[in-house]
């Protein structure tokens, strides 16, 4: 038996202090920012942070480890339902509910991950898609537990009194979500830099070679699935607090597909890609949402215009920025650097398109 695939110490590599410093700085900047914007923008900020948690985890699985999941929405549902069930009749603190929901999703992820490790490419896509379609239906079937189609309501988190009576609850959930997102990013960022992260990539790039190098491919894939599911569970738990209701219709196939499109649009395999993707995921609908009633169009046209725009954004993004926003920015920076360095060195600044994740 070789070394254990997952070491807790790998979460605490030397780069930790650098990442922690960055995260702390980001946290302070975001707190200041969130205090300057309106409550609705705070609410969107919270949504972005929650999606960042889910998409970072998914990006680890799909971008870094090469396993496509079209079912992460269902794993978010596991986290959200755990939260709603824990809070049903109990007034448990968030600090207990979040880890418990995360663990529940990780367990489901472990079970499914074992199955997933046997599957490749479209077969994995199909199995995870079936998970996205099938799992929420359990809530309808066992409605006495899960509340059926109406779902389970979750009381919003109230800001502590020392923040003042006027402190908007939207800002408080945004702060919680931002903190959770930054912690997730720091931990996963360190994981990527560690030997575990390198194994993830090795398995993605060439399974046979990875196996020859002594990596237990199946176990690496299961670990990636579990970490990723834990992120989805954490995101799902916060999602329940954020939206106020956990119902099957909130966790349809569309959510899973949105998560995948977010990491591809943002940039596969990079932490910042997950952030960009989440911003697109929240802002495109928010910006186009009012068109139905504000533009003076026939209702059939106005009603569907935002959907049309969203679909067109996906198509155009894939055609114009194939490596996502993150890849596009890297290319821009590289071009700028090349220009800065002058024409002397022609090859400088050429981006390695095939590995936008590296670096």
């Amino acid at each position: 038996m070789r070394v254990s695939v997952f070491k807790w110490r790998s979460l605490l590599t030397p780069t930790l202090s650098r990442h922690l410093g960055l995260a702390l700085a980001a946290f302070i900047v975001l707190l200041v920012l969130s205090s300057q914007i309106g409550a609705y923008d705070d609410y969107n900020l919270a949504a972005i942070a929650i999606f960042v948690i889910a998409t970072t985890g998914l990006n680890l699985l799909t971008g870094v480890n090469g396993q496509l999941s079209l079912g992460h929405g269902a794993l978010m549902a596991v986290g959200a339902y755990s939260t709603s069930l824990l809070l049903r009749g109990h007034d448990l603190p968030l600090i207990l509910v979040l880890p418990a929901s995360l663990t529940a999703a990780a367990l489901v992820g472990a079970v499914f991950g074992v199955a997933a490790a046997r599957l490749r490419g479209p077969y994995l896509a199909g199995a995870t898609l079936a998970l996205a379609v099938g799992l929420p239906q359990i809530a309808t079937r066992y409605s006495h537990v899960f509340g059926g189609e109406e779902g389970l309501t979750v009381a919003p988190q109230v800001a502590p009194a020392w923040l003042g009576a006027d402190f908007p609850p939207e800002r408080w959930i945004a702060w919680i979500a931002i903190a959770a997102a930054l912690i997730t990013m720091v931990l996963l960022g360190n994981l990527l830099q560690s030997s575990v992260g390198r194994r993830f990539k090795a398995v993605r790039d060439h399974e046979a070679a990875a196996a020859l190098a002594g990596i237990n491919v199946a176990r690496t894939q299961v670990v990636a699935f579990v970490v990723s599911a834990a992120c989805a569970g954490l995101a799902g738990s916060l999602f329940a607090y954020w939206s106020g209701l956990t119902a099957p219709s909130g966790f349809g196939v569309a959510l899973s597909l949105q998560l995948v499109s977010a990491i591809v649009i943002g940039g596969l395999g990079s932490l910042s890609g997950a952030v960009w993707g989440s911003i697109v995921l929240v802002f495109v609908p928010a910006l186009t949402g009012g068109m139905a009633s504000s533009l003076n169009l026939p209702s059939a046209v106005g009603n569907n215009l935002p959907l049309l725009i969203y679909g067109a954004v996906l198509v155009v993004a894939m055609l114009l920025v194939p490596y996502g926003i993150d890849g596009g920015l890297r290319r821009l920076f590289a071009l700028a650097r090349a220009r800065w360095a002058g024409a002397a060195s022609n090859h400088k600044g050429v981006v390695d398109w095939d590995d936008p994740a590296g670096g």
Partner: protein
Amino acid sequence: MQRFVVLTLNGLTEGSIYAAMALALVMIWRATQVVNFAQGAMAMFTTYLALFSLENGAPYWLAFVIALGCGFALGAVVERVLVRPVENKPPLNVVILTLGVLLVLEALAPMLFGGQIRSFPAAFSIVGLRLGSLQVPFSGFDLFTLVSVLVVMGLLLLLFQRTDLGLRMRAAAFNPEVSRLLGIRVGRMLTLGWALASVVGALAGLLIAPSLLLYPTYMDQVLVFGFTGAILGGLDSPPGAVVGGLVMGFALSYVGGYLGSDLETVGALVILIAVLMVRPRGLLAWRAQRVV
């Protein structure tokens, strides 16, 4: 017993639609290694075009042919204009691209044809047949559905196994570089593969519309179960697609009938996982593992 017969016949009809959708997905997969998530939406759109033709006075069979023709064109255009440019990009890009096409079509359809639920006529009676004094829960249109899916499958089999064109299409999909050296116009073959697959998809749309009713998302469910069927049978195998689609049809019908309709999708999940655990590349996978 009566109930078993009803559920079996229902599974057969539904299954043949899933088989057609699975067949379309498998053809595209074999041609370009793409899972076309827009397949259902494309079929929805061509069925709306058929309805539009009907409402403007076209006879049923003309509208039928128009939909299939538009399916051919739509498949070719999507491949040539949208899919080809992302061919050498990361494989997930084309998945997202087809999702984008799906959303665009589902938004365009209500814009062009109105957002209400519509009915769509069937070619033959949808009332169960009478055999002498016996009434069977299987209609003339169900029979037509089943026969047309079988005929299409037979034609495709002939095309791929017995014709020069079919051989070139297979070669282009299997080994583009060598095919190019042999003078096969690979690009054109791949476009043709998409176009033919979309005709099969359009057929599925036309056949299921009378019993599902026509609205922008009516093919979503068919796509999911068709995809599940294709995976179940093995994405590389057209006969596997038909078998997988039929298995899905029967399984969903029995689960819905005996355990409750709210368990159908859960049943689909369990069956799929169970099969894939035993045969990770589908029931009829025979080919050596291809590294994707």
